[in-house]
């Protein structure tokens, strides 16, 4: 179909139609990124415009202050990285597994009340993170519902959000390792010692981890349900005829066919879990003992509360880089193992 004749008129219309979106996204998304890039290599401290003459270029000083040395900035960044690494390492696999499990259950052929269960599992995903955090602070308080339930089975729950003890440190304590063995105390990475790296998530962070699983498993369940319905029942039946048991059918038939959805879910999970902010802002502000500090919150805090705008912006870009690298890496890993695994 030849559109040459009308393409001039369509050009005007096209750009007119696009202009609001292009303008808003350009002005409040693209332009700001470049402004922040400048701030991250400047010594701006929040006074006046970052583009005025008395703001200096400092090269990679802000990045260096965060990534090396044993100043406070480096220690805080190292701590926030440790916290977030444990958060990602626990939340992503657990929420994906739970989402898939829920989807398999809800998708069973002979199930009444499917709509009810779907709604129940999905509802936490539509409520605001602030409301859920408020609820969580209550449920996991020292006199809260969770500890009440634990006490019913004879367990003495901790004061979750006040407890900075690391889970792995607690476990090591059980086998008698209470303080850092020399090798772990003497080496450090990103400003904190290896011993601090192996602390595991703190009790407080564990409560946030459970919250993340609670709120996102429903969203990902929907993605898995859609994928499962696309697969249809034929393959299952073929497997049944071939004498495969339920686990084998799941492992060798369903799971490989869910690979594209799995990729989506893992990617969205990775992207989301590296951006933990709302919960920390609402709930703990990085406490107790900085064990719920995350890079996202640290970036905000450095800029808005301690006026270290350069460092705050630098943290944001490091975080951006981490997310991009992990996404690419993960795509590559899932490609490599095609068919096998």
């Amino acid at each position, binding site marked *: 179909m030849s559109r040459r004749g009308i393409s001039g008129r369509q050009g005007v*219309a096209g750009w007119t*139609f696009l202009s609001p*979106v292009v303008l808003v996204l350009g002005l409040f998304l693209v332009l700001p990124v470049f402004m922040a890039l400048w701030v991250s290599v400047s010594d701006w401290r929040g006074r006046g415009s970052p583009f005025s003459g008395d703001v200096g270029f400092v090269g990679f000083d802000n990045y260096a202050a965060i990534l090396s040395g044993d100043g406070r900035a480096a220690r805080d960044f190292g701590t926030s990285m440790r916290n977030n690494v444990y958060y990602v390492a626990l939340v992503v696999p657990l929420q994906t597994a739970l989402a898939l499990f829920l989807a398999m259950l809800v998708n069973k052929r002979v199930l009444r009340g499917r709509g009810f269960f779907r709604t129940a599992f999905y509802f936490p*995903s*539509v409520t605001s993170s602030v409301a859920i955090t408020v609820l969580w602070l209550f449920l996991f308080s020292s006199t809260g519902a969770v500890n009440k339930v634990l006490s019913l089975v004879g367990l003495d729950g901790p004061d979750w959000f006040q407890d900075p003890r690391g889970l792995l440190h607690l476990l090591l304590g059980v086998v008698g390792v209470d303080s850092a063995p020399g090798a772990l105390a003497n080496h450090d990475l990103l400003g904190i010692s290896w011993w601090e790296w192996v602390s595991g998530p703190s009790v407080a962070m564990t409560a946030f981890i459970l919250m993340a699983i609670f709120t996102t498993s429903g969203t990902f369940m929907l993605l898995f349900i859609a994928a499962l*319905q*696309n697969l249809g029942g034929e393959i299952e039946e073929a497997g049944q005829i071939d004498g495969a048991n339920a686990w084998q059918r799941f492992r060798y038939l369903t799971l490989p066919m869910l690979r594209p959805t799995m990729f989506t879910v893992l990617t*969205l999970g990775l992207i989301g879990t590296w*951006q933990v902010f709302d919960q920390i802002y609402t709930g703990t502000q990085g406490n107790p003992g900085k064990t719920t500090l995350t890079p996202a919150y640290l970036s905000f805090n450095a*800029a808005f509360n301690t006026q270290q705008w350069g460092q705050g912006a630098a943290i944001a870009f490091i975080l951006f880089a981490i997310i991009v690298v992990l996404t690419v890496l993960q795509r590559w890993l899932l490609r490599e193992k095609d068919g096998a695994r």
Partner: protein
Amino acid sequence: MTTTEVRSTPTPVTPKRRSTGARGGDVATYVVLALLAIVYIFPFLVDVATSFKTEAEAAVDPLSLVPSTWTGEAYSRLFGSSDFPTWFKNSAIVTVIVTLARVFFCSLAGYALARLTFRGRAFVFAALVAVMAVPNVVLLIPKFLVLNQLGMYDSYAGMIVPLMADAAAVFIMKNFFESIPVSVEEQARIDGAGTFRTFWSIVLPMARPAVMTIVILSFQASWNELNHFIVSTQSPELTTLTKGVANLASGALSQGTQYPLKLAAAAVMTIPVALVFFVFQKRIMNASSGAVKE
């Protein structure tokens, strides 16, 4: 993250339901599902129940779903002697304007990308894809910088305008428009209708399912938005529910724990999204609805 479900693959229209006799496994499935459903629902019931309890009872008996003495004190304090009504008003203003603007602007852009041929279209499309990849928290400081520079910091404009476009919504609209046969518009064009007229009175009405999807997603996203308002405002008169309740949670208004008050605030701020969710849940959860014509 709540925007993801609508972009997913379409589900087949015909659910397969073959009645088989009850098997042992089914009972187990129901038991597991019921237990899980309790875990997912119970926290919300606790929230509502506790908001009607006295503070002492909330501490002593956090599990019971029926307060031993009912009290509406949390709610009367919330609405009578706090800024909560202002927060609610601000959230409502922002949500309504953002949602209307997103529907209009994103469907315009989606239509241009789906139907109009012009120089630079491919570039804009690629740019939109790239923009979607930028994580939200990376934009906290940048957004403040630009709002400050433009003199929009701490104003309704600064709260609303940056939220008015959403790349994901543009894609949903574009995909939908592409599924409408071109012949419909060609007829209108032959009749002499201009591009905007064709879009506004012929194509947009046909895109109602996609428009509804955008309405729902924008409503949820802007009602639940927190970090944009943290970096775009500071005055109490411009505080939204999310920001206000977040500050309430970290102890802004209170001595002591004040759990009934905080949980009442959490419950009230959940009501509008819950309503939208229950009214439109078929559309929200049938992942296909945004992308497939009805």
